[in-house]
């Protein structure tokens, strides 16, 4: 049986299957207001709230079991700090994975997001995922650059504010 959310490792980062125990270390990262500039949502108000969010994701599947819900905490290898997370919502048929990523503001510019997302995509390809997609705010140029470096191309956007990018396996 395939483990859809195993630990993964590259030269610079380790991806750990996201669990509620990671909430304490990730709280300062994901509660940073600057991070939410382009994200439609609300930062967690407390570690307890973040722990609850992560606990809900530990099922690794949605309630009707039509999607795999995969999340990994990103550990920076040189100092063992958690610096963000990567996420994939994978159709059960493996036809498509919608990906997302959040990296702490102070860890930008070191290619760590590229390394972490590449590692996740490489794993998803290895288990048979055929296509990848991502939605990004049209003003989030840093994220758009990352997607282009990863080989994504812009597809038809239904909403001009939220651009859609896709890549094939």
């Amino acid at each position, binding site marked *: 049986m395939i483990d859809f959310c195993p630990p993964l490792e590259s030269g610079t980062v380790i991806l750990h299957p996201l669990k509620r125990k990671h909430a304490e270390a990730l709280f300062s990262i994901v509660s940073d207001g600057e991070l939410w500039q382009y*994200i*439609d*949502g*609300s*930062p*967690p108000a407390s570690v307890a*709230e973040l722990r609850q*969010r992560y606990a*809900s*994701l530990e099922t690794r599947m*949605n309630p009707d079991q039509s*999607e795999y*819900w995969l*999340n990994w905490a990103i550990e920076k290898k040189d100092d063992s700090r958690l610096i963000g*997370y990567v*996420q994939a*919502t994978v159709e059960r048929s493996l036809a498509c994975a*919608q990906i*997302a990523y*959040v990296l702490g503001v102070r860890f930008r510019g070191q290619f760590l997001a590229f390394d972490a997302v590449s590692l996740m995509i490489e794993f998803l390809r290895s288990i048979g995922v055929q296509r990848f997609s991502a939605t990004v705010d049209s003003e989030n140029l840093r994220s758009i650059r990352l997607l282009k470096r990863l080989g994504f191309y812009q597809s038809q956007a239904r909403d001009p504010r939220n651009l859609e990018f896709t890549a094939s396996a």
Partner: protein
Amino acid sequence: MGEIYTGQSPVIGLSYAFTTKFFLEPNPRPNNQGVLPDVKIATTERDIQLGKDPVLDYALRLADT
């Protein structure tokens, strides 16, 4: 299902129960489904990470209209 009466025989002490009504719905639903919602709102993995509650958001929008 019904309106149940219980009692005990005063002579031999035997307990008994019997129903006086049998309730039926005009359009019985299948078992184990309860009341199905008119609108199904799904919460996504991303919603959970971002602390969004699409069910509550839909209800609030509905209340506003």
